[in-house]
């Protein structure tokens, strides 16, 4: 696996796609945002001036000040620290979700595309059915059964999320299956397993990376929506969707109550926008038709 990645990176650096990507302003902005978010998540405990759960009961409902950069909420918790810690939830959900989705979808897609016939038919029926299902409703039913929580919603959302990966990988596999080098590999007696991992998979990495970058922000959005509904991460944990759910009760309150609504939302937008910039730039770079 590491060898595949190393080979891929070596090839990538010389490709026109990479040159195009480097010049794209969206790539730069997106990369900067994503790096900042990752940095913030890793060093949250150093950056955040306060404990995100600690209630400063004498200083509730404070406006922004040097002590509390974004003010404090109704329970006297530092909003800025809570936002900072929220990056951890967003990244955990995004990363785990795409890893689980890809590790279900990619093998199934490879199998369907490479084997063809009945296996292909069966897997693709399942994929079509899954894609037609409303993911949020399925996740809701899952939570109804097993209860809310960070890891449970990740599984709940993965139930429907893998299908996109399977469809992509099947298409990719079908596209390269007829190539001469696959035939050559077969004729020198390579095993199916080797052909799939050494020849088919490496040729599908670029679209896979694009899909991952594109589903990352979608994962963050839907997970925060689940928390907002009270079905995901539960308060008082500083997850942005959960914070917004609690804020609803205070929406009509005087200043600084609106800040409790505004800041978590902006945090979500910044992270999602960063990944969307990156995803768009990657997609355009890998699609020669869109290049000028």
């Amino acid at each position, binding site marked *: 696996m590491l060898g595949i990645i190393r080979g891929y990176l070596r090839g990538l650096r010389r490709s026109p796609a990479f040159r195009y990507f480097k010049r794209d302003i969206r790539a730069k902005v997106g990369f900067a945002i994503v790096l900042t978010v990752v940095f913030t998540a890793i060093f949250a405990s150093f950056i955040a001036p306060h404990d995100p759960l600690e209630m400063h009961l004498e200083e509730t409902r404070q406006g922004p000040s040097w002590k509390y950069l974004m003010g404090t909420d109704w329970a006297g918790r530092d909003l800025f620290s809570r936002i900072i810690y929220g990056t951890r939830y967003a990244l955990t959900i995004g990363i785990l979700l795409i890893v689980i989705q890809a590790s279900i979808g990619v093998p199934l897609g490879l199998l369907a595309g490479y084997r063809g016939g009945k296996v292909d038919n069966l897997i693709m029926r399942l994929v079509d059915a899954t894609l037609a299902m*409303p*993911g949020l409703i399925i996740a809701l039913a899952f939570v109804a059964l097993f209860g809310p929580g960070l890891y449970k919603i990740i599984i709940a959302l993965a139930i429907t999320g893998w299908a996109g990966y399977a469809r992509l990988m099947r298409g990719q596999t079908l596209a390269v299956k007829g190539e001469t080098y696959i035939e050559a590999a077969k004729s020198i007696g390579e095993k199916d397993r080797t052909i799939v991992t050494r020849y088919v998979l490496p040729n599908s990495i670029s679209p896979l990376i694009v899909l991952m970058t594109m589903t990352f922000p979608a994962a963050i*959005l839907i997970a925060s929506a689940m928390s907002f509904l009270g079905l995901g991460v539960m308060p008082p944990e500083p997850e942005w969707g959960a914070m917004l759910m609690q804020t609803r009760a205070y929406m009509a309150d005087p200043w600084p109550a609106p800040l409790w609504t505004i800041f978590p939302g902006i945090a979500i937008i910044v992270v999602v926008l960063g990944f969307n*910039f990156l995803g768009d730039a990657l997609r355009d770079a890998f699609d020669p038709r869109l290049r000028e």
Partner: protein
Amino acid sequence: MQFIRLPGGMYGFIIKRLLLLIPIFFAVSIVVFTLLQLTGDPARQVLMAQGILEPSAEQLEAVRYQYGYHRPVYIQYIRWLTGYPSADPSQGEDPRVMTSGLLRGDLGFSHKFSRPVRDLMIEKIPNTLILMSAAFMVSLTMGLLLGVISALRRKTWVDYSGMGLALFGVSIPNFWQGMMAILIFSIWLGWLPGEGYYGLKWLILPALTLGTAQAGSLARMTRSSMLDVLRQDFIRTARAKGLKERAVIYTHALKNAIIPVVTLLFLRLPYLFGGTVIIEVVFKWPGMGTLLVWGGMGVAGGSGKDWFIIQGGVLMFLVLAVLANLLCDIAYAYLNPKIRYGEGG
């Protein structure tokens, strides 16, 4: 299907597709039925909906016999679906609480609201459909307009700001957009009501919020589809024939660009369901979403779980998804003759 001769063409395709609904419906019913079994003990769920959170062994046993949960699972499924075999009092089953079957429209009884789930659904579904259709219209107009204009003014500030707006729309969590709409237009400015549904005025904010959330991705799809079409040879031919630019754009390009967009729009309807649930909760819209989240799950302001509402709600949404998928297939077949004759797909 070889032994029955079905008519060809569009009608044949629709009939085939409708026949396919039967096995799909069974699959959906099995999934939804299995959910109740997966909770571990259906009797406990019945008592929980009645407000008895820690039932005694006797209470559980009594309910189990009353509702017939002591029977083998396949009998329970057949009964849940058809109402047969009907309640057998000699086994302790109570005819008053026994289901008369899903096929006869019995979705169970909500102890929390003391009403049949079917009545609750009939009350809420129209509201949800109103909200969804209004949002659909908003997203269609805004998305198509933004996408087409951006494609025609490619690489100008119009394109960049239009696509910037669309990207922003894709990146905003729609529940937050709804909260901000309430904050600005309802609480600060006082222009529009933000909670409940008592008339057309109440529809504006939720429909706009839900619609704009979808419009962003629609605009992006429309733009790339339009650009694809504008590169095609037949556009060059049309221009070479000396047709006016307007005619080229509106009759040739737009018509072809819309096909993939409309299909994708129908394909994305399941996302709209999810979005509707969230927006309903934000705006306290009395629809299926709030019924499911507040009534069924008992979260975000509701209290106590009622499994039969969850079951009914999930079933309704799955049925809606299946129907949306059917519409999508028919629309696609209508637009793309290859599928109609069983050559493609």
